[in-house]
C-alpha cells in the first residue's frame, strides 16, 4: 500500500500512541503477573498476547506469513490443514484506537477502532502483502476493510455468512462459503488440502478442544481464575495449535488449588480481548468470579468438536461448516432464539444466580439482544446486570460500585 504523505504532528501522535500501547500491554502484564495466583506456566500465553499488539513484529517472527482472520466462523482446522498460521484480528487496546482513521463514526465499536489503529499503515506493516479472511458477521466487521482502506488493496477473502441457521438453504450457502475458503487457502498455502490432511487437522483441534473442555470444567468448579482462562483462550488465536496444547497441559499440571470465596456469576455479551481485562479485574474486586461465560473470545472461541459422518472431503467440510454456523450463537443471527437455552443450561448446571451482561459501546448486536435476554432471565428469577463500557479506564470506579451493589443482591 502506498503510504500517504504524513505531517510531523501526526507522526508524533503515532509514535506516542505506540508507546502508549506498549505501556498498556506492560501494565496489564504486570498486573496479571503480580497476582498471588500467577504461575510461570502462563508466561507463553502472556508473551503471545503481548506480541499480538504489534502485528509487524508478530509477522516478522512467524516462519510462514499468517492469515489475518476475524470472528470465529472461519474454521481454524482449514487453516491448519493448509499449513497456514492465523493472526486473529481482535484487540483490546484503548491506545490503539487513537490511531484509527478519522472517518470512523463517533460511536464506533471499540474493538474495531482499536484494530484499525493496530493496522495503521504507518506502523510499517505492508498491508498489501497481507491476506485476510473476513466472515460477514456484524456491520462493523462487514465495513471494516472499507473503513480502514484495505478493500481493493489487500488480499481479502470474504465469507458471506447467512444470518439464518436453521434452514437448508442457508446451510448449503455456508457450505459453499467453506468450500470457497478451502480453495482460497489452497492457493494461498502449500497446495491442495487433502481429506487426510483435513482429518488430521480436525483431530489435532479435537484434542485441543478436549483440553479446552477440561479448562472450562476447572473454571466452572472455580479451580482456576477467570483471568487465567481469558489469557489461555485469547492466546489460542496467536499460537501454533500444538504449542498451545503443550502450554495448556503444562498449565493444568502446575495449577495450584485456589480458595473458592467469590460469588459465581455468568458473564455474557461483547468479546473481552487482551489487554482489556478491566471487567474481569473489577468483578474480582467486587467479590465475584466469572464461573462461566458465553463470550466468543472466551468459552465460545472453540465452537465445539467436529462430528463428521465419514472422512470424505464433503463430509468433513460439511461438519466444519455446520459446527461454525449452526452451533454458533453469535447475536448477529436472525433465528437465534435458542441462544438463551445455552445460557439457561449453564445457569442451571452450575447453579449460578447472577448474570453480568457486558456491552461494548457501539457493539450493536449485543446491545440489541440485551433487553430481550434481560426480560427472559429476570422472568426465571435470575439477577441481571448490564455493564455498558468501552476500553477507557475512567469509568472503573462507577462500574465497581455497581458491581458491588449487584454482588450484595446475590447473597452469600
Amino acid at each position: 500500500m502506498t503510504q500517504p504523505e504524513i505531517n510531523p504532528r501526526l507522526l508524533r501522535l503515532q509514535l506516542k500512541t505506540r508507546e502508549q500501547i506498549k505501556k498498556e500491554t506492560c501494565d496489564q502484564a504486570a498486573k496479571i503477573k503480580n497476582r498471588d495466583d500467577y504461575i510461570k506456566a502462563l508466561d507463553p500465553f502472556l508473551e503471545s498476547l503481548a506480541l499480538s499488539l504489534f502485528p509487524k513484529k508478530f509477522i516478522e517472527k512467524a516462519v510462514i506469513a499468517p492469515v489475518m482472520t476475524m470472528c470465529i466462523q472461519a474454521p481454524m482446522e482449514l487453516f491448519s490443514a493448509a499449513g497456514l498460521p492465523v493472526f486473529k484480528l481482535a484487540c483490546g487496546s484503548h491506545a490503539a484506537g487513537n490511531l484509527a482513521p478519522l472517518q470512523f463514526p463517533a460511536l464506533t465499536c471499540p474493538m474495531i477502532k482499536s484494530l484499525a489503529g493496530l493496522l495503521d499503515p504507518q506502523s510499517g506493516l505492508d498491508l498489501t502483502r497481507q491476506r485476510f479472511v473476513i466472515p460477514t458477521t456484524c456491520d462493523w466487521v462487514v465495513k471494516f476493510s472499507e473503513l480502514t482502506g484495505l478493500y481493493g488493496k489487500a488480499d481479502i477473502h470474504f465469507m458471506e455468512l447467512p444470518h439464518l441457521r436453521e434452514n437448508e438453504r442457508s446451510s448449503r450457502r455456508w457450505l459453499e462459503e467453506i468450500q470457497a475458503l478451502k480453495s482460497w487457502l489452497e492457493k494461498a498455502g502449500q497446495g491442495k488440502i487433502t481429506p487426510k490432511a483435513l482429518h488430521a487437522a480436525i483431530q489435532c483441534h479435537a484434542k485441543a478442544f478436549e483440553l479446552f473442555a477440561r479448562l472450562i470444567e476447572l473454571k466452572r468448579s472455580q479451580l482456576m481464575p477467570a483471568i487465567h482462562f481469558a489469557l489461555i483462550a485469547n492466546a489460542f488465536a496467536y499460537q501454533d495449535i500444538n504449542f498451545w496444547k503443550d502450554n495448556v497441559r503444562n498449565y493444568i499440571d502446575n495449577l495450584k488449588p485456589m480458595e473458592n470465596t467469590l460469588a459465581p456469576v455468568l458473564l455474557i455479551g461483547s468479546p473481552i480481548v487482551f489487554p482489556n481485562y478491566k471487567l474481569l479485574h473489577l468483578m474480582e474486586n467486587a467479590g465475584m468470579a466469572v464461573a462461566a461465560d458465553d463470550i466468543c473470545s472466551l468459552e465460545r472461541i472453540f465452537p465445539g468438536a467436529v462430528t463428521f459422518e465419514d472422512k470424505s472431503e464433503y463430509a468433513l467440510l460439511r461438519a466444519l461448516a455446520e459446527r461454525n454456523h449452526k452451533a454458533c450463537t453469535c447475536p448477529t443471527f436472525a433465528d437465534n432464539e435458542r441462544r438463551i437455552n445455552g445460557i439457561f443450561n449453564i445457569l442451571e448446571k452450575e447453579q449460578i444466580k447472577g448474570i453480568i451482561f457486558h456491552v461494548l459501546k457501539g457493539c450493536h448486536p449485543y446491545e440489541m439482544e440485551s433487553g430481550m435476554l434481560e426480560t427472559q432471565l429476570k422472568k426465571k428469577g435470575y439477577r441481571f446486570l448490564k455493564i455498558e463500557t468501552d476500553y477507557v479506564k475512567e469509568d472503573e470506579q462507577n462500574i465497581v460500585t455497581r458491581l458491588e451493589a449487584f454482588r450484595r443482591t446475590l447473597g452469600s
Partner: protein
Amino acid sequence: MVESLRLFCQHISFLIMIYGGRLGIRLGNSLPCFTCPYVSGCAGHCYLMVLQRSSVGFQTAFDIFFSGAVFNILWPFAVFLLFFIPLSKLWCSWICPFCLVQDWISLVRKKFYIREMILTRKTRNNIKPVKYILLVLLITIPLAIANFNLHSDWALPFCQICPGKPILPLFQGNWSYFHINYTNGITMAFSFLSMVITGGMLVGMFFRERFFCMFCPMLALMHLLKAISPVRFEKKIHTCTGCGNCERSCPVDIPDVHLEKVKKNVLTQDCMGCMSCVEACPADHTLTFKWFGFRLFSSSRSYLSRKWSQK
C-alpha cells in the same frame, strides 16, 4: 463408547441370527427384524413373512377373522409383541442383521473416502409414506388372494421383492435368489422387480447410509406400536442450542430432533435407536434414551470431546 458397543451387539446378533439355527437356536417366526426365512439355518424368521402367510397371517378368508381360528393369527402377533415391547426400535440398530449389512456397505464407501449422497428434507419427507404403503400392501395383497381370487403367485408379495431375500442368503454361499423366475408372468414380474430393487438398494446403500431403512415396513409397524414401548427418546427443549449435530450424525438425517422446540418426545418414525445423535450432542443431558424410565444413555460435552478427539 456406545458406537463400539452397538457394533459389537450387531455382529454377535448377526452371527446368531444367520448361523444360529445350525447350533440349535430357534427364536420362532415372529422376530421384529430382518432375519430372512430364505437363509437356511437361520435362528428365527422375520415377522413380516408371517403377516403375509395363510392361516397365521393375512392370507386368510374374512370369516376366519370372526371365528376361533383368529387366534392362529393373534398368537404370532403376541409373540412378536413379546419380542418387540422390551427393545422396541433398538431391534433395528442393535440386532437387525440387514442393518449391519448396510453398515458394512457404507463402511466400504467410507474406506474409499467417497461422499455420502445427501437428500433434502423435502425428499426425505416424500419418502416417509413409502414404508406405510408397503405395510398396507403386504397386508391387503394376501387378503385379496384369500378373498378375491387373486392368483396365488402373488403370495408373500413383500418377501418376493425384499432385497434381504437375495442378499442375506449370500452369507451362506447361496446365490440362488439372484434369478428371474420364468414360470409365469407374475413370477417373472416379481423376480424381475426383486432384481431391480435389490440392484437399486445396493447402489443406494453404498451411497447413502441405511438407505433401505427409509423404506422398511417393519419400521413402520414398530412406529405404530411405539406407545406400548418402554423405550423413550427425550429431548430437553430448553437446553438445546440448535447446533444440528444430531441431524448430521443421524444415519437417516432425521431433522426433527434438531428442529423440535416444543415436544419432549423425539422418537420419530424413522428413528432406529442407534443413539448416534446422543453421542454427537454437545449439551449435557439434552438428549436421553430411556428404558422403563431408566437412563440408558445421555448426551454430554465431555463424552463428545473425548470421542471425537479419538476418531
